[in-house]
């Protein structure tokens, strides 16, 4: 990895590999550019249940109205945004909120990884009134354990969120516990200049992908860059293969262990993956995703399946980066599902001042907050469709369209399933698969045995 040449490049690299799974997926690719288009009223269905009541906010400035109702005083916000750019973004939010309502937002920033690791004790100790977290099972888990506050009345005033986002924010009991703020998609990235030169076409089916891979190998490229030293990046590959082969509903059921891990359909995912492995970069377990991205950057690899944050590693050539969604495998299922993890805020169960906390959350979910974020943190896709996204780069625009047109959105394996299952079973399990792709039966049996003990 070469020395960063500009400040932006430098900032963009401030993502530790071990943390990337969490932070990077939210934010953190540089590039404050261009004009973008708003999402439009696309419906985003999400992993969760289907509570899509229409939001009934009538006042245009719903956010600030609610906020000014509880002006002055202080509210605390626990943040895992320890890197420079997102940290500044949050500070800007706090300042804007204070300017608008007079309430000070005391932001307690904890190093990214540490925040997540200590979440259990954090929530049971004396957490901040509001804290950053992720949508999906990860959110519903804490909600169901009674560690998060009910935000249904906040949602009653939020505008600009599609049904998909609302479902993503809903707990198992039908109430909302989460206010979404940003998100990003997972897709297959490539360098158009290389593809144009070699005459490659974007593959639309699995067979086309395989053929393309073979051609790339003949041309001396690594077809698909790959890294799984930290254990989580390969989950993206599993997710997309499962979504393509077995469909969104099966994937969600599998994540909830409504289907067994030794089901033949799951084995099919692994065997398809095993077929594709020769096209992937060898020895993934010793490589971090940043290093794999460098392979793409230095034109050694042809493609890389990762989240939008991969562009952090490619800041020198951002105009020469493009992506496509993973090709379809089963024509009956198509290719309109993808992973697009959503980040946002939750409220502690017993905040020091519930009214103020809810006021802050209402404002955070508003168009005003989204505008502030877009301006001060140019590396996100904001969740609120009412935000002014004229500052979006071409890549951000395309990402927003991709997610907007997707029929089904998953949150990524480690946010869609039980955290203990994801980190102590799936992570080593997938690493074991990558070491030994031949023993699929043994692997699935082991995964199922362990799943049974956790999903009691």
């Amino acid at each position, binding site marked *: 990895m070469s*020395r960063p040449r500009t400040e932006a490049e430098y900032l963009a690299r401030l993502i530790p590999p071990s943390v990337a799974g969490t932070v990077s997926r939210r934010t953190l690719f540089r590039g404050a550019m261009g004009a973008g288009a708003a999402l439009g009223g696309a419906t985003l269905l999400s992993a969760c249940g289907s509570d899509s009541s229409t939001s009934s906010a009538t006042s245009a400035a719903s956010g600030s109205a609610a906020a000014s109702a509880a002006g002055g005083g202080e509210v605390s916000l626990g943040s895992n945004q*320890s890197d420079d750019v997102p940290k500044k973004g949050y500070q800007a939010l706090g300042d804007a909120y204070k300017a608008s309502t007079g309430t000070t937002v005391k932001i307690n920033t904890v190093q990214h990884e540490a925040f997540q690791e200590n979440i259990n*004790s954090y929530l049971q100790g004396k957490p901040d009134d509001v804290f950053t977290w992720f949508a999906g099972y990860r959110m519903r888990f804490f909600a169901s354990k009674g560690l998060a506050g009910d935000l249904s009345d906040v949602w009653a005033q939020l505008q600009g969120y599609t049904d998909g986002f609302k479902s993503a924010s809903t707990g198992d009991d039908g109430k909302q516990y989460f206010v979404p703020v940003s998100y990003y998609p997972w897709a297959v990235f490539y360098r158009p200049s290389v593809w144009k030169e070699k005459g490659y076409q974007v593959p639309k089916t699995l067979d086309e992908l395989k053929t393309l891979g073979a051609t790339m190998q003949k041309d001396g490229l690594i077809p698909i860059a790959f890294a799984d030293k930290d254990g989580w990046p390969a989950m993206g590959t599993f997710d997309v293969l499962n979504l393509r082969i077995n469909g969104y509903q099966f994937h969600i059921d599998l994540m909830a262990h409504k289907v067994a891990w030794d089901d033949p359909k799951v084995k099919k995912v692994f065997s398809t993956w095993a077929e594709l492995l020769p096209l992937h970069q060898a020895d993934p377990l010793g490589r971090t995703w940043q290093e794999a991205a460098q392979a793409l950057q230095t034109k050694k690899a042809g493609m890389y399946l990762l989240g939008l944050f991969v562009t952090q590693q490619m800041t020198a050539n951002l105009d020469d980066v493009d992506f496509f969604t993973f090709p379809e495998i089963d024509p009956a299922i198509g290719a309109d599902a993808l992973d697009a993890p959503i980040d946002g805020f939750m409220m502690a169960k017993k905040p020091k001042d519930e009214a103020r906390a809810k006021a802050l959350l209402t404002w955070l979910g508003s168009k005003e907050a989204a505008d502030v974020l877009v301006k001060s943190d140019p590396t996100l896709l904001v969740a609120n469709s009412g935000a002014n996204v004229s500052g979006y780069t071409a890549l951000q625009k395309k990402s927003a369209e991709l997610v907007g047109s997707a029929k089904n959105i998953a949150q990524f394996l480690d946010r869609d399933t039980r955290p203990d299952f994801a980190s102590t079973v799936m992570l080593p399990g997938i690493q074991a698969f990558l070491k030994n792709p031949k023993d699929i039966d043994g692997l699935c049996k082991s995964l199922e045995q362990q799943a049974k003990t956790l999903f009691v």
Partner: protein
Amino acid sequence: MTAATTQAAPTLAVPQNRRKPRPSRIALHSFLVVIALGWLFPLAWAVINAFRDYAFTSENGYVSWGGFTLTNFTAAWERANFTQHFLNSVYVTVPAVFLTLLLASGVAFVIARFTWRFNLVLLGLFTAANLLPQQSLLIPLYRLSILTPLPEFMSDSELFYDSYWVLILVNTAFQTGFCTFVLSNYMKTLPKELYEAAMVDGASVWRQYWQLTLPLCRPPLAALATLEVTWIYNEFFWATTLMRTGDKFPVTSALSNLKGEFFSDLNLLAAGSIIVAIPTLLIFFVLQKQFVAGLTMGANKG
């Protein structure tokens, strides 16, 4: 130190020709030189690279010479907020060492001075405590610390968790065993006549302890203090698991934060690591005798 006394003891069979080095001596010295250099090398390499500019090493690789600068140190100091973290280390280490020695000397005194049925049990409980694996105690300690409230002036989290107190007390509990063991051994060698005289004078147990025994225990206390400061300062397991607020982390856990931010700039990390290592290296060089004495007192009676 014992080494001096026994080493100087004259022996009957004096090796001939002390002046002319024998081949075996030369071989011995050469071997030791190689070993010493080999052992020193990894640390020396880290020190050298702490002084090297990252731009230089990323262009020329590490097998190169040049690119020396002091900026890594200043950058590391600021980015990792070392001032605050060193202070935190002081807040934890100094009280912990003091408390450990105080408590350990008390128990050691009782064990050494009086014969009691429970002496052996006590000694056993304390010594074994030091040897238990920390991970196996993590969960209950962490629950305990969350459940124990503290007044606000003692802890801004209002809990035992995430306060300096929890680190101080946990470290004390762990280190008391070793110190008790060493001190009791030492105190047992103090002549009983000392106490006889004191008893005749009507001195209370407390006075015997405080004015008689402790002053005489300066050597082991110094040795243990050196050791304990090093061990507690270097400790990072409890610090990372029982504390949540980044600003309160002692310096060794702060280093892992620095790693989080600058994982690719190895030179900067090397500078940060050297900064963290300096206090222990200093203590080691200045108080080497005490350090060695402390460890060996635990191993050797005396």
